[in-house]
């Protein structure tokens, strides 16, 4: 078992203004799964994603990642966990402007104390695996949306994480590029065994996942494994 959530809740604000975004989530995710979390805006899917990604902490309930009890970690310890085990890709790509592909991909490695050569080699390998070996020196402004998202994927997998979190990864992309990116994620999941957890509200995007978890009003509405 990779991820285990038990009676997880998250409340924003206090008193009358309090808003319960998650109202008791039980969820198990195994290593190597490709899970799509779906729901309308305000359903709590982003909150769940942030807690799973160790960016946020639950109000109550337990979250175990491997054998780590996440809610007991300090902010710094969660940073270390993210650094070593988790990768992130975002709807807006979030690449550093005026920074080349190689340098963008090297950023996570800067926080791991690798030598310049190791950093460079790992970055090159990650970039090659997303098919951008000919765009090493280009800055994000010189790349298409799909290419930028691939740089972002390379940045997320360069640290060889066990889990990849993707927050609306195709929200800014056209249909053809969307399929391209989803194939890339599927391949990483299949070939490297990286667990992929993806938030989306589009059915055709979610269709690439092996399992679809629907969230409504802070609770799991349905949890289907595709045959």
């Amino acid at each position: 078992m990779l991820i285990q959530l038990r009676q997880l809740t998250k409340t924003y604000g206090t008193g009358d203004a309090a808003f319960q975004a998650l109202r008791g989530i039980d969820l198990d995710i195994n290593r190597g799964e490709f899970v799509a979390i779906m729901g309308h805006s305000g359903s709590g899917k982003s909150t769940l994603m942030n807690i799973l990604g160790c960016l946020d902490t639950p109000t109550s309930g337990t979250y175990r990642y491997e054998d780590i009890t996440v809610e007991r970690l300090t902010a710094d310890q969660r940073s270390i966990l993210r650094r070593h085990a988790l990768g992130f890709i975002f709807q807006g790509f979030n690449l550093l402007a005026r920074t080349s592909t190689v340098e963008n991909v090297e950023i996570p490695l800067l926080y791991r104390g690798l030598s310049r050569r190791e950093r460079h080699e790992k970055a090159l390998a990650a970039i090659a695996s997303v098919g951008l070996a000919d765009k090493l020196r280009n800055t994000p402004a010189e790349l298409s949306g799909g290419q930028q998202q691939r740089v972002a994927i390379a940045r997320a997998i360069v640290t060889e994480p066990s889990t990849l979190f993707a927050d609306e990864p195709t929200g800014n992309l056209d249909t053809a590029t969307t399929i391209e990116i989803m194939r890339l994620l599927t391949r990483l999941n299949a070939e490297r065994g990286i667990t992929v957890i993806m938030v989306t509200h589009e059915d055709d995007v979610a269709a690439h996942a092996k399992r679809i978890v629907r969230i409504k009003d802070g609770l799991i509405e349905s949890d289907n494994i595709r045959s």
Partner: protein
Amino acid sequence: MLSTALNALHIALREIRRNVTRAFLTMLGIIIGVAAVITMVTLGQGTTKAVENQISSLGSNLLMLRPGAGFGPRQPNIPNFIESDVTAISEQIPGIAAIAPARGASMSTAYLQNARSTSVTGTTEDYFSINKWTLADGRFFNIADYRDGAAVCVIGNTVRKELFGSANPIGQKIRIGNASCEVIGLLAPKGQMGMGDQDDTIIVPLTTLQRRLTGHTGAHDITMISISAEDAASSDRMISEITSLMRQRRNLQPNQDNNFNVFDTRQIAETLSSSTRMMTMLLAAVAGVSLLVGGIGIMNIMLVSVTERTREIGIRLAIGARAREVLLQFLVEATTISCIGGLLGIALAVALCYGLGSLINVPVAFNPQINLVSFIFSAAVGILFGFTPARRAARLDPIDALRHE
């Protein structure tokens, strides 16, 4: 910890490289501040040094006795000294190495078609050694010239330049007032002094001035008495002894103030160098304020930069940077900018010091201390004013930062 710091330096340098123009504009305040402080202090110290050199060129252990109370213009109705004052001082005050009376007058001088007004001093042959004049050429006048009131003169370098140009003045006759005098000596230059050009002078025997140049032999005609002490330590004692002797000789009642003054060159030196030092400190303080303003400039840009780079900070936090690593990154960035600014400021200061120094004729000496202090101060400014923006960056919540537009 060391690797974290090195890492922060690496990331910070990358960030600076990514936006060189912004970094340069940020460090401009520091560059100007550091350059201003160093230039002011170096030039101020050069001025102080120059003043001290000129004072010491007046002669050491030198006492001067002048009519009137204190420096400044001559007050009316104050009698000059007489020759018997000189005799009385040399006989009654112990510790005198040499003593020379002097009388000054401003007179017109001419050689061929060149003419100018110059200060002419009539004195005895001891005047040269007391005032540390040395010869560039020719000879000083001697006791025989003095006794005879010979028509001879020794001229300063400025007089030579103005009257003779490049010609050799020795043996030539110049007109002083209505008389003709042979130039027997040329003084080695002493240079500019706070009070004026020391080399714009003609020195003649006192008897020559009295008999030939002014035609005035009144007893009260000595306007200054120069005295050299055998050793510097006794100058305070000699000042008080000369003061009481002169009070007695000038019939001053106990309730009357001195109508003459005695001072030694050390006092002038102290007065002048303390005032130039004060000026230096004042200028350095003003320049220091500009350094402070430069620091505020850094804080301003860094604060803007934190807001502008909120998403970048969010990404860094999401991919596993700890708060302290983000803090360190911004702190190192601010400090690196201010340190580079400090180094550029030192380079600018060197250029300014030598440029301005040669323009206003001040000797410039590289002062490692002020350079080091300014550099450390600029680094401190970076840390101090970089801290607030850095802490703001480190305290960002990764989720909010990632959502920031």
